């Protein structure tokens, strides 16, 4: 074992840092730093900057425009990007759909869709969950019936993240209602401009319409948009979920959050002293830091152990549970650190539309909303309860 970065890895870190310094626009960096909400154009801009450098798709093969980075390179990039207050890149096309197309799609589908993910022509969203199918994902009811060269789709998806910005959605649809529930599901790509698709936003606890309901009313989808075989969608769906979890530990995000937390606790005063000198608060911060230091290594151990280009197996459930708990704890500490200044709800400031100054010090406006928003981490991508059940069965053999 050797915990030191090799000379090449150090050089890579320097290169990434330098690029971020030169390329990440100040305005975008400030929005991310202060926890403001990003507009569609902000996210598209970030994607285009990464794409211009050839760094948009860390996991993809080079042949399709990816980086083929190993686990350590990905870790370095993520850490540097987070510490530089870069936005996160959107996972839906890059690390959800693309691995499925690479593994199970036709070459035509890869040539058709992958370049458009890179050049920003398409914005994908994930149409898995339904009102009746959350943790029990295989219970999806959205129906797709073959009609000549098309599938006719009827039903509803929900919790669709950023579906309001998307023009394509990948869906789990039921093609054989008679079969056992896992065996009648197909994986279908749907153009959201097709007649019969309706998107309705859902406002969340932080006041932001981050997710949506997506309704399908006799939507005609060309049969060529089926991925893999009909009724084999469950296999692809699960394959996608393990890829969804590769970056789930969120070590980079937590590292950036910890830096912000320390900065805030060093400035905010409690009883005349900086909060960071308050033994009680200092102990909580230190514990979170200790957990995070170990998590960084757990994450690299698990991710490195997976074969090249493959996602880790059930071990990724450990990363999900512990990684999200650490991240949630850090957002909770940041909220507490702000004291009464965490109280005001400042949507105009957070939306970035107005230049109105925020009430309270830097980071105060976003502290409570982001604490509330981050409750999602233990719910989506397979809830933490579901992850524990996976650990129980697949690792512990109980």
């Amino acid at each position, binding site marked *: 074992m050797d915990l030191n970065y090799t000379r090449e890895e150090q050089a890579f870190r320097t290169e990434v840092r330098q690029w971020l310094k030169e390329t990440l626009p100040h305005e975008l960096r400030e929005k991310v730093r202060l926890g403001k909400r990003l507009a569609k154009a902000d996210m598209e801009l970030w994607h285009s900057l990464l794409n211009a450098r050839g760094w948009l798709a860390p996991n993809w093969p080079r042949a399709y425009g990816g980086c083929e980075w190993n686990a350590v390179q990905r870790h370095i990039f993520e850490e540097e990007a987070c510490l530089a207050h870069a936005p996160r890149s959107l996972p839906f096309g890059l690390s959800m759909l693309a691995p499925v197309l690479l593994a199970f799609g036709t070459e035509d589908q890869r040539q058709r869709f992958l370049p458009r993910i890179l050049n920003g022509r398409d914005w994908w969203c994930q149409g898995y*969950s339904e009102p*009746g199918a*959350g*943790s*029990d994902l295989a*219970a999806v009811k959205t129906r797709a019936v073959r009609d000549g060269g098309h599938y006719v789709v009827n039903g509803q998806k*929900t*919790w669709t993240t950023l579906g309001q910005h998307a023009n394509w959605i990948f869906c789990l649809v039921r093609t054989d209602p008679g079969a056992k529930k896992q065996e009648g599901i197909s994986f279908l790509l749907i153009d959201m401009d097709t007649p019969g698709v309706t998107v309705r936003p*859902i*406002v*969340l*606890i932080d*006041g932001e319409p981050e*997710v949506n309901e997506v309704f399908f009313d006799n939507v005609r989808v060309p049969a060529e948009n089926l991925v893999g075989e009909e009724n084999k969608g469950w296999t692809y769906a699960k394959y996608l979920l393990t890829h969804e979890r590769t970056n789930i530990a969120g070590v980079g995000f937590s590292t950036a959050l910890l830096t912000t937390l320390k900065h805030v606790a060093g400035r*905010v*005063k*409690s*009883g*005349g002293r900086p909060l960071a000198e*308050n033994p*009680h*608060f200092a102990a*909580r911060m230190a514990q979170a830091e200790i957990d995070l230091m170990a998590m960084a290594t757990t994450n690299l151990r698990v991710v490195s152990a997976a074969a090249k280009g493959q996602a880790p197996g059930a071990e990724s459930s450990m990363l999900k549970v512990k990684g999200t708990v650490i991240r949630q704890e850090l957002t*909770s500490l940041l*909220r*507490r650190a*702000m*004291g*009464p*200044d*965490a*109280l*005001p*709800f*400042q949507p105009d400031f957070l939306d970035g539309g107005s230049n109105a100054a925020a*009430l*309270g010090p830097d980071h105060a406006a976003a502290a*409570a*909303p982001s*604490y*509330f928003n981050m*409750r*999602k981490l*233990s*719910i*989506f991508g397979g*809830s*933490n*309860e579901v992850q*524990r*059940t996976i650990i129980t069965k697949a690792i512990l053999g109980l």
Partner: protein
Amino acid sequence: MDFNLTEERMMLRDTLRRFLADKYAHENRRALIAAGEPFDTGIYAGLAGLGVLGAMFREDQGGFGGEGFDLMVVFEELGRAGVIEPVLPAVLAGGLIAAIGNGRQRGLADEIIAGTHLAALAQGEAGSRYDLNHVETTAAAKGDAIVLNGIKTHVLYGAEAQTLVVSAREAGAVADAAGISLFLVPVNTPGVTVSGHRNMDAIPSATVALDGVRLAETARLGAAGGGLEALEAAVARGLAALCAEALGAMEAAKDLTISYLKERKQFGLPIGKFQALQHRMADMLIEVEQARSAVINLAGNLDQPRELREIHASAAKNLIGRAGALVAEECIQMHGGIGMTDEYALSHFARRLTMIDHLFGDTDYHLERFIALKAG
């Protein structure tokens, strides 16, 4: 010992619960907030009519209650329904006026009890965090006038109030206990600028700038330089109210979650059949009962000498903070996605529970304060 409510308090609780069940549907509350209204004046008048405000004051103050258990009964119901109308300022600012006001000043308390006058407590400052004694706002004698300068932050209902009870320093250093006075400041006094906003939990709040505000000597509430003692006692009552409100919100969140666990099916079973959730629900029930006991301890000691009162105030606020976070986080988690939506009542209870921790000292603050009080 007797853990039963008196008949009067039971009646008050029942009529209040009926009134709120009838008039305070979650959809109406959401629509009110969406419309940008700070609160519903009709509901507020209704609450005054039921005697909710009178119950906050003793008989010799013009009310018919004023004990810890009166606060508890009322605020638990307000918390259960998610009420955003300004009953808390009646306890804080109104309580101060009734407790230490002179004959003329106490006339204001009668109007507060009637619900026709709103007074808000302007105590916090940018640098004070949760310390009542940290007062940078100054009050200086100029001829026969007193002139206030400073900025007060997080003034709950400050933009809706007609009168502010302001803490300002007449003598001593920034964090000294002595030298703080309280003043009655009508909001239309020249030099007062109030900017309102809404908090995360939908409660209206404000920043108040005091720029050369000239007051007469008669505006001083209580003794010159001796304001902290009265302020601390009023805040202890405010803490009892907030802790009881949090208890009500916890009960409501817990009830919603129990119903949901019975109703929501995944894998062909109500999710309440999964032991992973059952045990957490059991733990939550235990914590909520502990929270109730902590509120009872505080309510029963509110009129005791300072040290005992404050020990229970800090104990309750600490325990309520911990239990509140647990209930808010666990109820959301056990609901899954639906628990995070603005449309569903749970997220509003979770927001209120979380934000109560940021009012008048959070879990950590009161833990340290408890240790100090016990050591002293």
